């Protein structure tokens, strides 16, 4: 393992911000830590970087305990949330900084800065002032600066956090491609699930300083570990249920569950795609309260006639009902997950 955290714990003001976190990152792996603000994900990066001392536990890099090793000797790179470019240096001076700190000769430095700026899509920008850069350009310079000393582990704190949507979507693809090409080991944190799923080989969901779930983007998306993860991923159809013999008893009536689901009192997730709209007489009778156009589909919000929490359904634009319409609901067992 390139990076291992063993029961890493950080307390700030008596409250654990990192609570006995264990995490492994293999060479060439891109791991994304996903979590709401305050879940401890930035602290995790700072602890690995050596900027935040651990209260207990260990950080190992390449198998070596990093306790007592200061930040500048750990050989990891960190790209800060708001870039933190040095305002008094130009673009080239920023990118060359790490190389200078590592004693790289001037001629070689200039060549490498040129290569890196080309790599991040800013060829010939070395003499530009950082104050005049756009958000996306600052982003690229910060990335080139972090990559320059060839860190064994590159960490990104909300790498695309402050950029507008279209630029983000483009950059996330570029980053993914770049890391694949360079074989960089990456540990990134973000609160944006789209970013995490697009970027990562593996996603780690954090909650209150603990790891709630770890897996490939597909695994996490398909089988959220618990109600918190499901809701954090944006799923709203989570209800308490009692599961026995392939049937779940819920406030929406009896719902089918996939074979092999856990038995007992569990929260139940119904993906919007698993909610089918039928004639009012044929299923759970509901009234449509809202419909929201979502580009590829329409999200329809329904309120069951006989009580129970509202249901969200995804349906094609041409068949979507209007608010006030009476419809019936049936549920597809393949889109239902019994949560832990």
């Amino acid at each position, binding site marked *: 393992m390139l990076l291992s955290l063993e029961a890493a714990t950080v307390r700030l003001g008596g409250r654990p911000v990192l609570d006995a976190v264990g995490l492994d990152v293999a060479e060439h792996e891109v791991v994304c830590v996903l979590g709401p603000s305050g879940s401890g994900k930035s602290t995790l990066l700072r602890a690995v970087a050596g*900027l935040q001392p651990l209260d207990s536990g260990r950080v190992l890099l390449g198998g070596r305990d990093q306790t007592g090793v*200061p930040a*500048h000797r750990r050989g990891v790179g960190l790209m800060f949330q708001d870039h933190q470019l040095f305002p008094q240096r130009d673009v080239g001076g920023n990118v060359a*900084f*790490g190389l200078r*700190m590592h004693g790289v000769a001037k001629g070689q430095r200039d060549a490498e800065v040129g290569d890196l700026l080309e790599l991040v899509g800013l060829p010939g920008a070395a003499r530009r002032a950082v104050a005049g850069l756009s958000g996306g350009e600052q982003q690229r310079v910060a990335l080139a600066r972090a990559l320059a*000393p060839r860190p064994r582990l590159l960490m990104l704190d909300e790498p695309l956090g402050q950029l507008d949507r279209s630029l983000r979507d483009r950059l996330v693809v570029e980053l993914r491609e770049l890391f694949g090409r360079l074989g960089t080991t990456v540990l990134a944190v973000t609160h944006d699930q789209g970013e995490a799923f697009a970027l990562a080989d593996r996603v780690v969901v954090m909650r209150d300083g603990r790891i709630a779930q770890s897996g490939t983007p597909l695994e996490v998306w398909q089988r959220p570990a618990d109600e918190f993860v499901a809701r954090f991923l944006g799923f709203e159809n989570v209800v308490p249920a009692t599961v026995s013999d392939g049937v779940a008893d819920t406030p929406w009536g009896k719902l089918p569950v996939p074979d092999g689901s856990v038995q007992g009192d569990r929260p139940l997730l119904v993906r919007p795609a698993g909610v089918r709209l039928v004639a009012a007489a044929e299923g759970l009778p509901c009234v449509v309260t809202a419909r929201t156009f979502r580009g590829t589909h329409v999200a329809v919000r329904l309120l069951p006639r006989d009580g129970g929490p509202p249901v969200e359904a995804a349906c094609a634009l041409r068949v979507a009902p209007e608010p006030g319409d009476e419809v019936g609901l049936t549920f597809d067992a393949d889109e239902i997950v019994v949560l832990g």
Partner: protein
Amino acid sequence: MALPAVFFAVFFAWPVTAIVARGLKADGVWRFGRMADVVTQPDIRHVLWFTTWQALASTALTLLLALPAAHVFARLDFPGKQLLRAVVTVPFVLPTVVVGTAFLALVGRGGLLDDLWGVRLDTTVWAILLAHVFFNFAVVVRTVGGLWAQLDPRQEQAARMLGAAPLTAWRTVTLPALAPAVAAAALMVFLFTFTSFGVVQILGGPTFSTLEVEIYRQTSEVFDLSTAAVLTLVQFVAVGTILAVHAWTVRRRESALRLVAPETTAHRPRGAGQWALLAGVLLTVVLLLVLPLAVLVRRSLDAPGLGYYRALTDADGGTFLVAPLHAVWTSLEYAVAATGIALLIGGLAAAALARRDAGRLVRGFDALLMLPLGVSAVTVGFGFLIALDRPPLDLRQSWILVPLAQALVGAPFVVRTMLPVLRAVDGRLREAAAVLGASPWRVWREVDLPLVRRALLIAAGFAFAVSLGEFGATVFIARPDNPTLPVAVARLLSRPGELNYGQAMALSTILMVVCAAALLVLERLRTDRTGEF
């Protein structure tokens, strides 16, 4: 942190302890009753009373004259504003001795007013009060005007829209926002005038004496060291109280205010009222700030063929063992050494204070650092005199004693100038450098230094100006054969004769030019609002 702490322990805490011991200990026994004995003496009570009321009167007069100017600087835009701002600031860095001499030339015997109307004020308290206003005008204009310029005028406009008349809007919206700054400025002025030494020494004559002057008189004329020590303690307590109140108001000032860029709030004068206000402020500045200095220069040129200046190169006058002009070089040498020490000590202290994880102890040190500034130079000089004259640290014969004392007075300025800038450096910039492989020392060199270089230069300029003009401490410890400029001026003034008087004017003019030049260089550097002074 260790070096500044040791410096202050040896050169401030220890001398102060020595003063306490000298004042309250007799034959190895503490006698706290001495405090009461000294303070109840009629002449000492008179000094205390005068010190307090002249400080109150000076403060009130300064506020009265400077607040309209603060408004003009904050809200009105007019040609020559930059120049006027520099003119207003010059007096603050001028040595007290120069100011005293300038007012002597204006209102004293044979002064301008004496020539014109036969009016002499140098034997009245008015000369002292006017000199104090001259000095502290900039304190009020800078502290209050600086904040005023950043207050969002739309707050007042909002009040107007809600039905408040202009004056009501000002009284209910602007004044409460300004009040803490006015209080802080007033306390600063009170502190400076309460501990006034050079001005009162020169203008006060035998009649008027502040605590500072009395301490000096008890030490160097009456040779009653224990009374001087007790008076120093009284002053110490008073200053400590003022500083504590000041710190409290400064904390209050940090309340949430809507601040905007100062350039956006000023406008051209509109209507007769605003033009009249501008004219009034200009007249005040010319009469109060420019005229005394102009008269000083004029008087120094009275002798034919720059006679007073030429006399300065001559050691035969008998006032000194060396030619008075020699004092210029002595002053410059001392000032360079003092600036170096003040920068080292103040810079290290500021760096330690700026750390975000600075503990309560370190922050307490911040207040401690301000003490030498407030506790007055005479205390510092007196403390040096009685504490550093015997082993293990006998510096009486060493030239370094004077720069050390001046550095002690200058270091608080360095800290005050550097601290806000260092605090403003984003800690994550340092972290970014560390992650890129910079060791702590390189982080400082590569990240902090480039960002604070200008503040460092400004701090150096202040330390230099303070050291050049420092009088209260230096007069105790400067050696007779090596006087600094202010000491030489004071000594020339204390001698009779037209030639000595004229030489004092000439030497003051030289000192003023050097200080004003230092300040103008500073003003060019200071395009942003760096530090508190």
